[in-house]
C-alpha cells in the first residue's frame, strides 16, 4: 500500500491584482505519494510557484479540497498551518533566503529553535557536511557562493527531518554547474533516504531528471508523466 502524502482535489487559487482577478491555479487534481520526486514545470506565469506554495501549506486554496498528511488544510487557520509546516515540511527557495546575520550553522539550527526541538548542533553540522560544507559552518551567507548558500538552505530545510521537501526554482539563481550539483543532492536525498521531493523549475535539462513531471499551463495541469530520463 503506497502512502499518499498530499491529495489535491479540484483546487483553485484566485487572487486580486489591482482591480483584476487572476486565476493562478485552476482545478488542479494531484496526488503525491511517499518517495516521489516531482518536478513541476511550465512557462513563466503558469502558476508553478503558487501551486507549490499551496501544496507546502504556505498559501491557502480559494476553493477545492487539499489534504496534507491527513489534514484537511483547506479549512485550517495560519496558526494550524504553521504546526503542519514545522513538523512535516521543508522549504528551499530560489533566492536562498538565509538570514544574513546568522552563520551557516545558525541558519541550519533556526528551524529547531522555532520548532521547540532540542538544539541538536551535531545534527546541523552533519547536515552541512552532507551537503559538502563541513568546512564552512561558521561562515556568514555573504561569505559563501550562490551554490554554497543554496546548500545551506537545503541543510536548513532538512534539519527538522521533514516528510516532504519543497523547492521553488532551487537552481534558478545558479550557474549550470552549481545547478546540477544542487540537483544531484536532491536526487541523492530521494534515492538514498527516500525523501519525498517536489520542486519547480523551468530548466528542462534538470527537470527531466525527476521521477515524474507535472506540466502546468495557465494554471492547468496539462500532463503528469513519468520521466524517461530519471536514473
Amino acid at each position, binding site marked *: 500500500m503506497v502512502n499518499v502524502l498530499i491529495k489535491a482535489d479540484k483546487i483553485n487559487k484566485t487572487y486580486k491584482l489591482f482591480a483584476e482577478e487572476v486565476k493562478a491555479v485552476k482545478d488542479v487534481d494531484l496526488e503525491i505519494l511517499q518517495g516521489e520526486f516531482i518536478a513541476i514545470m511550465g512557462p513563466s506565469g503558469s502558476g508553478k510557484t503558487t501551486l507549490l*506554495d499551496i501544496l507546502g501549506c504556505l498559501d491557502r486554496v480559494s476553493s477545492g479540497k487539499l489534504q496534507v498528511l491527513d489534514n484537511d488544510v483547506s479549512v485550517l487557520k495560519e*496558526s494550524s498551518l*504553521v504546526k503542519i509546516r514545522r513538523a512535516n515540511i*521543508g522549504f528551499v*527557495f530560489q533566492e536562498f533566503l538565509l*538570514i544574513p*546575520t546568522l552563520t551557516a550553522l545558525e541558519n541550519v539550527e533556526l528551524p529547531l529553535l*522555532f520548532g521547540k526541538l532540542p538544539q541538536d548542533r551535531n545534527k546541523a553540522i552533519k547536515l552541512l557536511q552532507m551537503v559538502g560544507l563541513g568546512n564552512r559552518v561558521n561562515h556568514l551567507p555573504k561569505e559563501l557562493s550562490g551554490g554554497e548558500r543554496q546548500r545551506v538552505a537545503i541543510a536548513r530545510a532538512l534539519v*527538522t527531518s521533514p516528510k516532504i521537501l519543497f523547492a521553488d526554482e532551487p537552481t534558478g539563481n545558479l550557474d549550470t554547474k552549481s545547478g546540477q550539483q544542487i540537483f544531484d543532492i536532491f536526487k541523492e536525498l530521494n534515492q538514498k533516504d527516500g525523501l519525498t521531493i517536489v520542486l519547480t523549475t523551468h530548466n528542462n535539462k534538470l527537470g527531466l531528471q525527476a521521477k515524474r513531471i507535472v506540466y502546468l499551463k495557465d494554471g492547468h495541469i496539462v500532463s503528469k508523466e513519468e520521466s524517461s530520463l530519471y536514473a
Partner: protein
Amino acid sequence: MKIISVAFKNLQRKKIRTFLTIGGVAIAVGVLVSLMGFDAGYQKSLTNDIDKMGYQVLVTAKGCPYEAATLMLKGGGGLRYMEQSVYDKIAKDPRIERISPQLAATEFDKDRQNGQGGIVLYMGVSNSYLELKPWSKFKSGKWFSNDDADEVIIGYEAAELEQRVPGDEMLVPNLNKVLKVVGIFERTGTQDDGVIFIPLKTAQRIFDLPGKLTGIGIKLKEIGSLGDFEESLYNEPGIQVISMAQVKGTIFNLVSSSKVMTNSVAIIAILIAVIGVINTILMSVFERTKEIGVMKAIGASRLDVFRIIWLETTLICVLGGIIGDIVAILGTSAVEHIIRQILPYAPAGKLVIITPGLMIGSFLGAVVMGLIAGIYPAFRASSMRPVEAIRLGD
C-alpha cells in the same frame, strides 16, 4: 542558539542606525534622571541649608519679605538696617532659647576671581552665634579674643579662595582696614562656608553703622509658640518677622512651578525617543519582510516573530537606559554648574543627587518604554503572511 541572539545579531546589522536610536533613548533617560536627581538633591540641600541656619525665626528691617528671604539665604540681607534697641527688647522674651544679632555687609573686591572682581560678604556676629550653631567647628584657630577685636574668622570655602591661615592679615577692600585672621571654620555645607565673620562691634565700627543690625536669628524653646511669638512682634515698628518654614515653603513653591516645565520637557524627550524607536524598528521590519516570511515558512509562529521584534526594541531601550544613567551620573557636575548659573538662589551642597533607587527606577522605565514601543512593530511583523512576505516582499 536562542531567540535573543537572533534579535541581538539583527541590531548589529545596521550599527549606526542602532547606535543613533540607542542615543535617542539615552538622552531622554539621561535628561529624566538628571531632572529627578535635581528635584531630590535640591530639596535636600535647601532643607539642609535652612535647618542649619540654627534659627526658626528671622527678624529683619521691614521690606519685601521674599527679598529679605533671598538676601538672607544668599547671605547678603544688608540693604535695610534696624536699630540694635530692637534686639535688646526682644532678647528678654522668656520664650526664646537662643538669639543672635547679625550685621551683614558687602564689599566689592576687584582682585577676586582672577581679576574679574567679586563680592565679599562680611558678617558681624556676637558670641551667641556659636550657641545658635553648635555644630560649627574650627578647622584651625579659635574664636575672637574680644567682642571689639580687629579679627576675622573665615568660612571654609572663603578661606580656600583667599588662601588664608590663622595669623595672616587681611585687608578689607575699599576701607583700608587690616584685620587679623584668628580662625577658620570646618565645612558646613551651607552658605556660611563663603562668609568672613567679624565681631559685631567691629563690624558696626569699620562699616560705619553704629547701633545697626541687619537681622536677628531666634530659636524658640517651644516650636509651638512660634505663632504667638510672631504676633507679639507685629507691634514693633520698622521690623518684620520671617519664619524659616515660610521661607522653605516659598522657595519650594517657586521651584515646583518650574518643575512642571522641566518635567514636561523630560516627558516630551521620552515621547520623541519612543517614536524614534518605533520608527526605527518598523523600518527594519519592513526591510526584512522576506526574512520574516522565510522564518515563518521554516516554522516560526506569530509569537516567535513577535518575540524577536519585541526583544530588539527592548534591547535598544535597555541599552539606552544604561547609557542614559551613566551619562546622567557623569553629567552631574555639569548640570550642577549650569543650574547654579540659572537659578536665582541655589543652596550649597549637592544639587543633583542620583540614588541607586532612581537608577533602578529609570532602568525599569526604559524596559517598559521598550516593551510599549515594540508592540506595534512586533504586531506588524507577526501579522505578515508568509507567502506574501516572501513572494511580494520586494
